[in-house]
């Protein structure tokens, strides 16, 4: 009698605890979904709204999805700005991919040099590269403009790429030196005995071992070059050279006082989607870089 009562009360309390846990769990996820909505909604609204008909582009996105059928009108009107959206996407891609390639090449060599060789002023030079982080590039744009002009690289995508590569170097050289430092010396010695030296050793033996570091360096180089605005605005002066963010200023300014909001939505979609895709695919390497930067 008493035993069964006790059992009942126990199962009651257990049930109460389970109910409480369930309630805490639901509150947690309700909050989580609300937060996720806030961070996701601007992307979703823009992307969905960019597929509305041209006639709807001026209207507020209520509802945000294309209510009267999907259309590419917004992308077509984006194409009427500057030298066409393909050209500017191509410029942005060219600059970003060239920045990735050059940053990786330069920082792998430098990271290898700093990790494996001894030479005079080594530490001074390393600190010099890292110290450029302290100085904002925004404060040296004018001389950059003049130096690039002297080198015959004014208004050139290659000149802009060189500037972007330089901006990436402190982080990338630091990353790559650490990556090479983490490779055990024994592997290198074994390879040396087998006759691999210097560049051959670097490319054949060490490169595969520091690949994760290279991935991190490449992602940051890509995202920063793709997204950079101020330097591109200052250093590029002719229409057909503009990268996407600079092109979007023309779209933002509008024509005859009217902004084509459809083109703005399409432009935002074109600019943000590659970043989101790259991040989602290579999240692991991105976070590694972030942690390395934070721990430093």
């Amino acid at each position, binding site marked *: 009698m008493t035993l069964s009562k006790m059992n009942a009360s126990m199962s009651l309390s257990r049930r109460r605890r389970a109910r409480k846990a369930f309630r805490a769990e639901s509150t947690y*996820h309700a909050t*989580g979904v609300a*937060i996720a909505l806030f*961070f*996701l909604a*601007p*992307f979703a609204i823009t992307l969905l709204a960019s597929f509305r008909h041209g006639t709807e*582009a001026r*209207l*507020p996105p*209520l509802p945000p999805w294309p209510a009267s059928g999907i259309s590419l009108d917004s992308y077509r009107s984006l194409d009427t700005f500057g030298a066409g959206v393909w050209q500017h996407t191509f410029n942005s891609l060219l600059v970003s991919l060239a920045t990735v390639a050059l940053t990786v*090449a330069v*920082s792998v*060599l*430098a990271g*290898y*040099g*700093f990790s494996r*060789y001894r*030479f005079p002023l*080594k530490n001074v*030079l390393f600190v*010099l*590269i890292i110290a*450029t982080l*302290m*100085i*904002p*590039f*925004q*404060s*040296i*744009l*004018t*001389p*950059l403009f003049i130096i690039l002009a002297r080198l015959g690289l004014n208004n050139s995508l290659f000149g802009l790429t*060189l*500037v972007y590569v*330089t901006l990436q*170097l402190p982080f990338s050289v630091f990353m790559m030196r650490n990556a090479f430092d983490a490779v055990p010396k024994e592997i290198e010695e074994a390879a040396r005995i087998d006759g691999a030296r210097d560049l051959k050793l670097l490319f054949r033996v060490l490169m595969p071992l520091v690949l994760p570091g290279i991935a991190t360096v490449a992602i940051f180089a890509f*995202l920063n070059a*793709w*997204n950079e*605005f*101020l330097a591109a605005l200052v250093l590029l002066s002719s229409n057909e050279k503009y990268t996407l*963010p600079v092109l*979007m200023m023309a779209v*933002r300014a509008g024509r005859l006082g009217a902004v084509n*909001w459809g083109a703005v939505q399409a*432009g*935002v979609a074109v*600019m*943000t989607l590659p*970043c*989101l895709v790259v991040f*989602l695919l290579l999240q692991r390497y*991105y976070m590694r870089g*972030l942690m390395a930067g*934070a*721990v430093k």
Partner: protein
Amino acid sequence: MAGPGPGKALPVRRRRRRSQWRGLLYIAPAMALVIVFFVMPVLFTGWMSLHNWPLLGSPRWIGFNNYFRMANDARFVSALRFTTYYTVIVTIAIFAVAFPLAIFVEKHRRFVGAYRTIIFLPVVVGLASASLLWVWLANVDSGFIGPALKALGLVEKSPNLLATFDSAFFTIIVMVVWKIAGFTMIILLTGLQAIPPELTEAARIDGADRWQRFRYLTLPLMRRTIALALIISVTGSILAFDQFYIMTSGGPQNRMISVVYYIFNQSFVSFNLGYGAALSIALLAILVIISVMQLRLLRIGEDRP
């Protein structure tokens, strides 16, 4: 007679000398870029700042006159004041959002990884794209925020968010928090995860309530992480440009001109290149002072963990 001695030493020394040069060879491309596109421009900025340097025509040496001009430049002073105001407010706002988020995503629950990823998404898009996106969302007729408030019946007429200083400033703060909070959250999360769970458990057994545990355990243990997140937020905010240029073009009554924006205007709109360089040196000095303070602040965290 003495032959074998130097004969043995020579190849070793030669090899070492050769490997020295090789090391320099490997870092040469990086050094060349840093010197041509960073060291030289910095020195050049200092040199230009001592000149009256028009876009066309030859520069004229004027000593420190640009710096005297800066001290009496009311627009520069107001740019400095606005940048400071923005930095303080946006940093507080970012922390007020990022800290609870970090605590939220620290728990071991299902989907917590998805929440982290989603909150982080805006970090990886450009500030220019984010500004453009929000300038549309905030538009009075074609945007989302105003018309949605009206559709919900919360306001009678869709408000023009970017028309007055306060509402435009608020919109920009919300945009920047949306864009940056995920980054600060991840930094803070690494700090939270570094706290040994035994300590929290011990404090709980000792009867410390949630707030006490946060105030007397979590916060002190996270000092270094918080300092780091603070510094990244402050230095980033001082250099703010994109959001003001794109969202408000300098704002209602030119009240949203940040320091970088003012340098941009002086150098590339008015073409006072010398004066722009002097302003840049001032900005550079401010940033270097903050960087030095940053190192000190981080060291304090090290001394008393």
